[in-house]
C-alpha cells in the first residue's frame, strides 16, 4: 500500500471506531462517564471506566461515529475544548485512584470552528500536553485510525504510543500540506509520502513503540491478545515508582528527533 492508500484506509468509514474497540474488549464492565464539569459534554470524546481482567482502567477515546447519524452527533470525531477538558478531568481522576489510562485516538484533528476558538482550543490542548507529561499513573495510547495533529497529540503524551498497521499520524493532513505548499490539494498522495505518516514510518522515526495488526470485527481471539498486550504493558508501568514513570515519559519525548541535531 502507498502512504496515501494508508491514509484512505485509516479514514475508511467501515473501519472499527473507538466504541467498537471498547465494546469488544470491555463490553461487560464499561461504564461511560460524561462532561468536563465546566461547559458541556463533548460527544466526540467517549470515556469511562472498565475492568481489564482484574485491573481497573480509565478509557478515553475519540469517536468518529459509525453511520451518518452518529457521525453528526460525534462531530466527525473532531473534539472541542470541552472534549479535551473532559479527557483531562478523567485522567486526573485516574491519577487520584492510581489507575492506568488507555487512550484510543481516531481524529482528523481538533475542531477548527468559531466556538472552539472562543473557548480556547489551543489552551485546552496545551494544558493536556503539560499535565499528561507528569500524570502520576501509566498512560498508553493506541492510534486506531487517523492521528490528526494537535488534536491527536492531546491524548498521546503517553508512556508508550502504538499504532494499528493501517493508521496514520501526522502534523497536518496530506491535503492541507499539498494545498499550502504546492497550492494543489490533488498532490495529497505526494504529500502523504513526504510527511512520513504511516505506522512503519513513525516506528522507524522512533515516535511509536509498536505496530499492531489490524483486528477484524469478528476476530475475538485478536482482541483478546490485544487486551493481554495492553494489560502486560500497563502492569509493567504500574509497578514502577511514579517519579521514575514520569521521568521515563519525559525522556521518551525528549529524545525524539534529536539524533540529527548538530551543534
Amino acid at each position, binding site marked *: 500500500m502507498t502512504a496515501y492508500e494508508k491514509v484512505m484506509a485509516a479514514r475508511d468509514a467501515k473501519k472499527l471506531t473507538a466504541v467498537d474497540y471498547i465494546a469488544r474488549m470491555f463490553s461487560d464492565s464499561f461504564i461511560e462517564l460524561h462532561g468536563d464539569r465546566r461547559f458541556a459534554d463533548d460527544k466526540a470524546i467517549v470515556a469511562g471506566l472498565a475492568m481489564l481482567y482484574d485491573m481497573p482502567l480509565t478509557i478515553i477515546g475519540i469517536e468518529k461515529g459509525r453511520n451518518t447519524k452518529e457521525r453528526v452527533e460525534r462531530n466527525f470525531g473532531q473534539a472541542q475544548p470541552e472534549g479535551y477538558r473532559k479527557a483531562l478531568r478523567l485522567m486526573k481522576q485516574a491519577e487520584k485512584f492510581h489507575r492506568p489510562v488507555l487512550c484510543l485516538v481516531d481524529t482528523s484533528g481538533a475542531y477548527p470552528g468559531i466556538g472552539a476558538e472562543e473557548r480556547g482550543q489551543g489552551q485546552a490542548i496545551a494544558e493536556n500536553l503539560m499535565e499528561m507529561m507528569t500524570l502520576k499513573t501509566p498512560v498508553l495510547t493506541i492510534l486506531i485510525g487517523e492521528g490528526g495533529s*494537535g488534536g491527536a497529540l492531546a491524548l498521546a503524551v503517553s508512556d508508550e504510543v502504538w499504532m494499528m498497521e493501517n493508521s496514520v499520524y501526522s502534523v497536518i493532513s496530506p491535503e492541507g500540506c499539498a494545498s499550502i505548499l504546492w497550492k494543489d490539494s490533488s498532490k495529497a498522495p505526494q504529500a502523504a509520502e513526504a510527511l512520513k505518516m504511516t505506522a512503519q514510518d513513525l516506528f522507524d522515526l522512533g515516535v511509536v513503540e509498536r505496530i499492531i495488526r489490524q483486528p477484524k470485527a469478528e476476530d475475538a481471539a485478536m482482541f483478546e491478545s490485544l487486551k493481554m498486550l495492553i494489560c502486560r504493558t500497563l502492569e509493567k508501568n504500574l509497578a514502577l515508582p511514579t517519579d521514575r514513570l514520569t521521568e521515563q515519559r519525559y525522556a521518551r519525548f525528549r529524545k525524539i528527533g534529536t539524533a540529527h*541535531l548538530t551543534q
Partner: protein
Amino acid sequence: MDLFSFVKPKNELETTTDAKQNVPFVPDEMWTKCPKCNTMLLTTDLEENFNVCTHCDHHFRISTKQRIDILADSDSFVERDSELSGGNILDFPGYDQKLEKARESGKESVVCGECLIGGIKTVLCVMNAGFMMGSMGTVTGEKITRAFEYATENSLPVVACTVSGGARMQEGILSLMQMAKTSGAVKRHSDAGLLYITVLTDPTTGGVTASFAMEGDIILAEPNTLVAFAGPRVIEQTMRQKLPKDFQTSEFVLQKGFIDAVVSRDKLKATITRLLKIHGYKENKEAAQ
C-alpha cells in the same frame, strides 16, 4: 530661433546624475508607511517609538534583535545554543532551499539566551517571524526545551515572546512532537516553582499556541495580535463560517479569558520587570557592577 531653445543646451559636463543632485535626496528607508493607517512615518521616529505607529498605535512586526533590545538591559543578552542546527531530516522536497532562504533572517525560528531584565537575571526566548514564519521544527523545540531546562537548573524565570505560523510541516511528525517536548519542559520548570511569562506577538497560531505560548503563569499579548489555534483562513475555508469582527485578536482572547493582559510595546519591559519583582526575583548585583 529654435522652438526648444529655452531648454538648456546639453553640456557634456552636465550628466543626469548631476541634475538629480538639485533634488533633495530622500532615501527610501527614511520613510515607512504604516500598513494599517497608511500614514507615512519618519523611520527614526518609528524606531524611537518601539516600532509602533505614532499615529494609530499599530505594532510593527520586529526582528529578534529589536525585541531583545526592547526587553533586555543593554548588552546583557548572551545567546545559548546559537549554532544548533538540524537540516532536512525527512528529506522533504524543497525544504533545503527553504531553509537556505530562511537563514538570511537568522539561524533558526527562535533565539534563546540569558539576560538581565530590569537587572533581574532571566532566560529569554524570542521567536523569529522571518525564519519560515516562526514555524516550530526540531531545532526550535530543542532550543526552547534546553532554555527551560537551563532555567530550571539555575532557578531562573523564563520570558518567551512568541510569533509563529505553527508547527513546521516539512519536519512532519517530528515537529508535532516538539509540542509535547516543550510542554514537558515548561511543566518541569513550573513544578520547580519558577515563573514563566509569555508575550504573544502577531501572529501566534497553531502548534505554538497549543503548547508553550498558552502555558505561561502569566500570559501577556501586544495589542491587535492574532492569537489562534486554527487561524482565520483555516476556519473560513474548512468550516465556511463567516468570522465575527476582531475575532482572535488579543483584545478578543482577553475578553474570552485566555490571556492576562494586553500590554503595548512601550510598557512591556516595565510590566515584566514588575512581575519578576512581585515573584521575588532580585536584581543581580554582581552583573550590575
